């Protein structure tokens, strides 16, 4: 029993954290009195203080403001990618599972090949084509992560096809679209939502990692702000003398990914009681 209680406590903390980050990202311009790009020569690399809670960076910009704006990049990339992947993958998996036979076999072979290749590798290659801005990144990441949804959706459809009510709906002459939309889809939604919660942190992780090694988003004039990964890289260079510059963005990335993963675990346990 205590396990379940602990779990729900953790889940509430994670949910709270995710909501707080989302609010901070949306309200960034109103939350902070500073501008994300406002340079000030007098306050270069100052440690955290009363005026600047997270200190300032190498160009005298307020770090807290930059981290708040960075949340916009991370959340947009995370949620956007997950939604693109969900739509692509679920439709693909539905078709494969519903058609069955040779079509299914062929379609899943393609998924297997994609699944076996390293995400980051395909992702880097795709980002060369689609450009290093948020839109290009979303497309590239979405094209990489759809395979997970395709696998889950297909497996679920194969199961759901056998349910009696699906057979019944078919027997009374319901159209194929209606069977999929009204009878199969609602029944496979649970595992897909769990996969969605896991996709968001992996996308955030991929984006921040790429930005950290300098091949992620490269768009200094973006109204979205600078990625946490780029902030962390700036801080990494100055880590020896000014550790606060890397500490805050790195912590933000870590806590956000942790919160989403914890949420995913909690959801999975709720939707799939066999696992507990």
């Amino acid at each position, binding site marked *: 029993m205590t*396990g379940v209680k602990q779990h729900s406590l953790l889940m509430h903390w994670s949910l709270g954290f995710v909501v707080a980050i989302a609010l901070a990202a949306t309200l960034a311009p109103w939350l902070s009195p500073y501008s994300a790009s406002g340079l000030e020569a007098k306050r270069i690399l100052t440690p955290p203080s009363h005026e600047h809670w997270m200190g300032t960076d190498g160009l005298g910009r307020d770090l807290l403001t930059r981290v708040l704006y960075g949340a916009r990049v991370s959340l947009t990339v995370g949620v956007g990618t997950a939604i693109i992947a969900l739509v692509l993958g679920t439709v693909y998996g539905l078709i494969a599972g519903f058609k069955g036979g040779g079509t299914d076999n062929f379609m899943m072979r393609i998924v297997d090949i994609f699944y076996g290749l*390293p995400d980051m*590798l395909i992702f880097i290659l795709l980002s060369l084509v689609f450009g290093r801005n948020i839109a290009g990144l979303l497309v590239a990441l979405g094209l990489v992560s759809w395979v997970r949804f395709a696998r889950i959706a297909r497996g679920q459809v194969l199961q759901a096809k056998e349910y009696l009510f699906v057979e019944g709906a078919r027997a009374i002459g319901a159209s194929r679209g209606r069977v999929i939309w009204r009878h199969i889809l609602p029944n496979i939604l649970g595992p897909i939502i769990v996969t969605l919660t896991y996709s968001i942190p992996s996308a955030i*992780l991929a984006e921040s990692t790429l930005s950290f090694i300098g091949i992620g988003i490269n768009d200094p004039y973006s109204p979205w702000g600078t990625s946490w990964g780029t902030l*962390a890289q700036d801080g990494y260079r100055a880590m020896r003398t000014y550790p606060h510059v890397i500490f805050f963005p*790195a912590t933000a990335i870590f806590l956000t990914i942790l919160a989403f993963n914890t949420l995913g675990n909690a959801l999975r346990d709720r939707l799939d009681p066999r696992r507990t």
Partner: protein
Amino acid sequence: MLRFLFKRLFHGAIVLWIVATLTFLLLRLAPGGPFDRERKLPPEVLANIEAKYHLDKPLLTQYLRYLSAIAQGDLGPSYKYLDRGVGAVIADTLPTSALLGLLALLFALAVALPSGLLAAYFRGSWIDRACMFVASLGISMPHFVLGAVLIWVIALQLNWLQAGRWDLWESVLLPMITLGAAPAAYLAALLRSTLLETFGEDFVRTARAKGLKESIVVLRHALRLSLIPVLTVMGPLTAALLTGSFVVEYVFAIPGMGRFFITAVTDRDYPLIMGVTLVYTVLLVCANLLIDLLYGVVDPRIRAN
């Protein structure tokens, strides 16, 4: 057995061909070329360069030429490292990356096997909770964050090791931990949950009822069966180690293939990008083949089929 091997090798060759073709097409689609400079090159110079690398030929000719070259093991010239070909760059850097990846994998197994076993055996105890807490942190920690933390604590504050060197035997420790931590966490959690299922199986009860020693019941009977799911994730895990090395080699300034790949991407050194991608694919195909063979070792039923 031979037929199985042959089939898998054939399958691997097809994967390799698909990857080669897709990479070739993707890089030709990419906007901007490797010879774009701040100051535009004179058109005659550009034409000469393109003629040298056969970029002036039709796409199909380029593709066939490229395929026949890699079939003969020639990965072509690098646009950036003019004195060495892509093959030479890879030959110089692959051993470093392979060493790091292998050590990270061993580290992950060395940590995950005992901690997963202990956590499952003492289910619900403080050992279990501590292991799983650390594992959940490890899964969520990006390589570059862990790397930075390790450098900050071990190298900068405690001065135990020096970061950014690759000439001492202990230089490998921090990168190895950084690269292996996430797989270790993942494997430990996986092993724990499969062991918990296995402990409930009839054959474990039978083994106990026969009066076998507890250590033999756990290690030889339960653990062996639970290794199958661990083997299953080894393929994706190898992929994760390969790409994780991009970041780790960058953070610790290690002269490995991953770091050269990153620079190749920034420089748009297309032949080097394609070469490294192909080497990664070959490594993955081999790893998966090895894993399939290991299945037979762990589970005799699979060998029979």
